């Protein structure tokens, strides 16, 4: 190696060798041999022969002595394997990412659809609902109390409304929500027992704690929790007030109820109590 010409030759050979290796690697990537089975790739290489650039690179390949100095065959094979693994990993990562994106999208869509079809509302706050009821329906309630307790179902005058103080939030009955529909008599949304007429200063109404959105069969529209609650409260308020004026629930039905019964929205039952009359006056019918 002391000869400078030999050193120059060697340097030139090394540069040629390096560019040759890079060209071969590029060819393999272009031909996508990495995705083929080794045998198939080998066969393809043999049958189609190297491309023009590959051919040129092959022709420029260094003579035997230089190969000993530059990258070895095993080094090339390792780089090719690494390249294949890298590409395979990229493809798997892409597939996995697509799968997860699809899954997340589907879950989000399902949740949105469920929320749209079956709105999930938080558990109602009874005090808030009661306050809202009187805020929203105060005037209508006063007018309907005159209609239900000021005259019977046939329009004959009664003095029930006159002896009843104006109904506001301040003299509203207490609400007992200790039962669900499963434990109320007859799976009812609300009810009034005889003892409730005098339970608490202004009486007590039992409202099921699990009142939620329900279908109004006459309109085909889903009622919100607040609407179902307001209707039930108005209905049971009518029964309670009737009982308190008459002195008993039996008397309330006789004096202020409608013996013909008021048909409910699904047309399956005719309700004869004063609650049905008050709800009908305030909301245009009995529902659900």
């Amino acid at each position, binding site marked *: 190696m002391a000869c400078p010409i030999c050193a120059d030759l060697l340097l030139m050979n090394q540069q040629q060798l390096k560019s040759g290796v890079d060209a071969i690697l590029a060819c393999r990537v272009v031909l996508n041999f990495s995705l083929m089975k080794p045998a198939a790739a080998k066969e393809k290489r043999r049958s189609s022969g190297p491309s023009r650039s590959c051919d040129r690179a092959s022709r420029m390949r260094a003579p035997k002595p230089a190969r000993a100095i530059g990258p070895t065959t095993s080094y090339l094979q390792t780089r090719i394997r690494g390249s294949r693994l890298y590409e395979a990993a990229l493809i798997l990562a892409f597939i996995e990412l697509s799968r997860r994106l699809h899954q997340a999208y589907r879950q989000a869509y399902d949740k949105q659809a469920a929320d749209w079809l079956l709105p999930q509302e938080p558990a109602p706050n009874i005090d808030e609902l009661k306050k809202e009821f009187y805020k929203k329906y105060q005037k209508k309630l006063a007018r309907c109390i005159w209609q239900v307790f000021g005259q019977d179902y046939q329009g004959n005058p009664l003095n029930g409304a006159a002896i009843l103080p104006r109904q506001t939030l301040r003299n509203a009955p207490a609400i007992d929500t200790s039962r669900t529909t499963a434990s109320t*008599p*007859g799976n009812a949304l609300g*009810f009034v027992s005889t003892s409730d007429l005098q339970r608490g200063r202004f009486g007590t109404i039992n409202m099921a704690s699990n009142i939620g959105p329900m*279908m109004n069969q006459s309109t085909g529209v889903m009622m919100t929790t607040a609407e179902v609650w307001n209707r039930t409260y108005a209905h049971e308020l009518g029964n309670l007030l009737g009982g308190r004026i008459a002195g*008993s629930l039996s008397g309330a039905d006789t004096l202020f109820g409608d013996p013909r019964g008021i048909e409910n929205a699904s047309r399956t039952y005719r309700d004869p109590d004063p609650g049905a009359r008050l709800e009908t006056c305030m909301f245009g019918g009995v529902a659900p």
Partner: protein
Amino acid sequence: MDKRFVVLLLMVLIAGCAAMIDRTSPVNRDLVRSESEADASVYKSIIEAMYVKDGIKLIVVRDHTVPGNLSDGALNEQLQRAAKELTLLSQETVADFLRKNSEQHSLTSTLKLNVDLKPMSESESKAIFQEGKGWEDFYKKYPNSQGIMELSKPGFNGDATQALVYVANQGSWKGGAGYYVLLVKENNAWKIGKRYTSWVS
């Protein structure tokens, strides 16, 4: 050996059959039958007078008795309140009512009506109201029915001329009521004397 085995087998069979024989005396059997007939007669009068109307073709009733309104305090307190309205109600009838309703009874065998009758079990009710859509499912299954009825065991006075029964019926989410009904016997038939409303929905 074989004879001994046959004799032993016969003895076991005879002992088994003897255990299955109804030991109720003939007098007691008659009493049970007459009580059952009296109950059936009272139930028929109440149901046909109060609920068989407006195109009702089927009566759905709980398959066991209930003592009264379970959400209105102790039963004897309820009856004291009821007695203020049902002025003819005798203490004898109240005592018999309380005694008979201290436990549940099956209703299926005592009900005989002029319309179809469907006893409803607790599991069926649960399937409809807790797992299903409630009244919507109920009326799909039992159209032309009055809803779901609950009955107590009737209580009678000494000479069986007065009867007290608790009957409750719910027909929708907000349509129902429970009553203590006082019946009186006139011309060998039960007639509703007066009723006391225990709850309304």
